[in-house]
């Protein structure tokens, strides 16, 4: 990634397994808006899986060692800020970063496993913080307000919980994404399902649960007359977008509610191409949001 202007800080980029594969659209949008903002986003070399659902359910030590390795490499490469757009990666990296910075005994144990020194001094941020602190200030002058658009900000679980681990925003009524949407000129819908679980990793093993939970979220968004749902987690996006087809079948809906990544919305606001933002990859047709804006 070449910086467009002379921003001095290189931000470490941790795409995680999702953005490298199933959530390519998220990855594309992050890179596109970062380029437009002139942020020096640099992928962390030789990063590995963050451990997310699988590891921490199976082996506690593994679930700490996996993200610890990536963090150690990031520190070795001189990064001080890392952005993990995937909420699960963010939760793991942020939590482990905090734990190993505070617990010397644990740190020694894990350093032995990953055969690397954990130097610390890193700050792990999520896509919302990245948008608020790096993208929005840089793009301030380029935004064409998305006036008239009603967008439902969907935070999901891992961005704001557990509160003592992530210490980010109000765990019961978060507002950071609402504020970014507002700054883009759109209206952040005040709805009740901001932090309700989408069903997470049950997408494959218990699809019925995901259809129930995500179905409730989609229903609420429709009832709130949202033009789209905005999310910052590839798992949530997949459940709300891909599984929406099953929900539509069950509920008898003719049209669906498009689900966007926050970075895609930012990209739209600064006039980037829909294809470049990965919007064409969605299951539920998500194009032509700008047209909706005009219609409202």
């Amino acid at each position, binding site marked *: 990634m070449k910086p467009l202007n002379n921003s001095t800080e290189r931000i470490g980029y941790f795409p995680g397994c999702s953005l490298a594969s199933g959530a390519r659209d998220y990855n594309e949008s992050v890179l596109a808006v970062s380029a437009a903002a002139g942020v020096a986003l640099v992928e962390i070399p030789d990063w590995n899986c963050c451990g997310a659902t699988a590891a921490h359910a199976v082996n506690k030590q593994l679930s700490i060692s996996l993200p610890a390795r990536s963090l150690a490499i990031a520190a070795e490469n001189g990064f001080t800020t890392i952005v993990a757009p995937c909420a699960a990666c963010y939760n793991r990296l942020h939590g482990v970063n905090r734990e190993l910075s505070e617990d010397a005994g644990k740190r020694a144990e894990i350093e032995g496993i990953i055969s690397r020194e954990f130097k610390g001094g890193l700050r792990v941020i999520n896509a919302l913080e990245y948008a608020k602190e790096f993208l929005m200030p840089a793009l301030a002058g380029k935004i064409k307000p998305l006036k008239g658009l009603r967008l439902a900000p969907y935070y999901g679980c891992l961005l704001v919980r557990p509160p003592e681990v992530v210490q980010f925003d109000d765990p019961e009524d978060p507002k950071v994404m609402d504020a970014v949407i507002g700054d883009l000129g759109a209206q952040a819908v005040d709805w*009740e399902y901001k932090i309700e679980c989408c069903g997470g990793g049950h997408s494959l093993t218990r699809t019925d649960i995901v259809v129930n939970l995500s179905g409730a979220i989609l229903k609420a968004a429709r009832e709130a007359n949202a033009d789209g749902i905005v999310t910052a987690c590839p798992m949530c996006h997949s459940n709300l977008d891909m599984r929406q087809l099953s929900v539509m079948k069950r509920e008898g809906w003719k049209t669906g509610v498009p689900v966007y990544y926050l970075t895609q919305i930012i990209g739209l606001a600064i006039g980037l191409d829909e294809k470049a933002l990965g919007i064409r990859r969605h299951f539920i047709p998500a194009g032509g949001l700008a047209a909706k804006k005009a219609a409202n």
Partner: protein
Amino acid sequence: MARIGVFICWCGENIARTVDVKHVAQEVATMQGVVHAEDYRYMCSEPGQRLITDVIREKRLTGLVVAACSPQMHERTFRKAAEAAGLNPYLVEMANIREHCSWVHDDREEATAKAVDIVRMMVAKVRRNEALYPIAVPVTKRALVIGGGIAGIETALSIANAGTEVMLVEKEPSIGGRMAGLGETFPTLDCSQCIMTPKMVEVAQHPRITLITYAEIEKLEGYVGNFTATIRLKARYVEASKCTGCGACFEKCPVKKVPSEFDQGLGVRTAIYRPFPQAVPNKPVIDSKSCLKLTKGTCGMCAKVCPTNAIDYEDKDRVVTEKFGAVVVATGFDVAQAAEFGEYGYGKYPDVITSIQFERMESASGPTGGKIVRPSDGVEPKSVVFIQCVGSRDEAKGRPYCSKICCMYTAKHTMLYKHKVHDGQAYVFYIDVRAGGKAYEEFTRRAVEEDGAVYLRGRVSHVYREGSSLIVKGVDTLAGEQVEIEADLVVLATAVTPRKEAAALAQTLGISHDTYGFYSEAHPKLRPVETAKAGVFLAGMCQGPRDIPESVASGSAAAAKALAVLSDDTLQREPVVSKVIEATCAHCRSCITACPYQAIEDYEIRDRKGSLIKVVARVNEGVCQGCGVCATICRSKSIDLAGFNDRQIYGQIDALSKH
């Protein structure tokens, strides 16, 4: 020359079976200082005690050791007996050869040898004992009660009815506390105001109670029997002596929308106001922050309409000092801020209220005249969900304790709701139903069996809006299912907490509190209304969650303790206190800092001209509790504890010498 008498008790068989008491007596007779050694079957009996008193007189004893049971059992008995015979009671010690010897060993030889050692130690100690005389501390025969809720009221009345003067200081314009704001009380469903107002009036009219409201304690100095309190009487702007309580002023006051503290924010009041109609004293005060005259210099309506010219805009705070012998703290409680619990939506949804707000709403004299309505649209709710344990039993929010009263008042609320809204349905989410008092369990059963309340054992995860209703999402653990209930009104039973200013007041008074802020008693089981500070007692909720019967009981108990302190012109204290040797004291202040009771002060020694010679430590005999921490910490051995001084203890150690 020491003339010590030693009496070895058989205690029937209890000692004699294992310890050869005759042999002990023989050994003891050879010990240094002993002039009389005798064994007897029951030393504590009348003939046994007479034996002692006879010997004391005959042999002019200078010290006495009774080798028998534990001093915790009979030290007092033998000290009294000795005193009656003319021997200073502090020259009497007991050698514990029963609990610590005959009862715990089987081998007669070993037990006897040990008994001899024990007696030898106590003889060595008594040789070094000094006569001590009880310390007389003068007493101001007046009690201070801080807080005019039901506990404070009960305390004040109990003390006054016993013939002692009391001053009751209350921070709000009226006494009555939280109980005055209740509708009906459990388990009788008595009207709270009805049972309380007679007591409030009694307090106001009692010849021995001086009632001061709208005032706060700023400082408490002194010690038991001799406290000096500095009290700030806040400016009322209404001259109590002229005011007749006619109410013309607040009827005409144009500032009508100040949120009413008494109505927990559900109602409004005027700037010149009386907290509630049955207020005692029944005289209004002006809230200087809301009054137009006091903030902007305009209006002045109340002064115009007052028929007795009682309004005084020039009023100022007054600070007075008063003397007391005992203090009772009855400052009550607060409830947790419901906004802490974002998941319940308090503050976001007007139809989510707290139990204390529901109580005001339900109350006949409340902001809705006793009607249960939704704050959002004034419509009668047909479905009300009560959530218990909001903040209580919650490690995550830092309050692992149970607030004790919520299960009962929630059951009460469901019943009162049903009595008013016949086609309404109440739901209660609970963890347990705690109903341990008299007629409490039966009360909660009535809520279910007679008034149809649905009790769901489980927690609520989320309250959110759907249309004009609220959806309460929780779990029914007994059925093993998630539940969603559509509610018109949600009531949160918020945790009982100490008052915001409790910690600051504790510091002012010199008492301690636990990690939550509730005031600490001297011993949780056996001294429940005393604090570690002599002369300061506790009553009511300031100590921790409790219901009205317990608060009243603790008020009476605290009164009894206070009366004991005030029962005489002087207070007799055990003379087991420390004393400073001023000649060698270097004023390093270690003892002053170490004393758990702040009983040691700096004392200036001056010559006759008034010039300072030196500053030393000096023990306040009225406060010292006799722990001896100071004696141990003193580097120059300039302070020692009477009754357990260094010489005495070294004497005991020496007595065990095997050389």
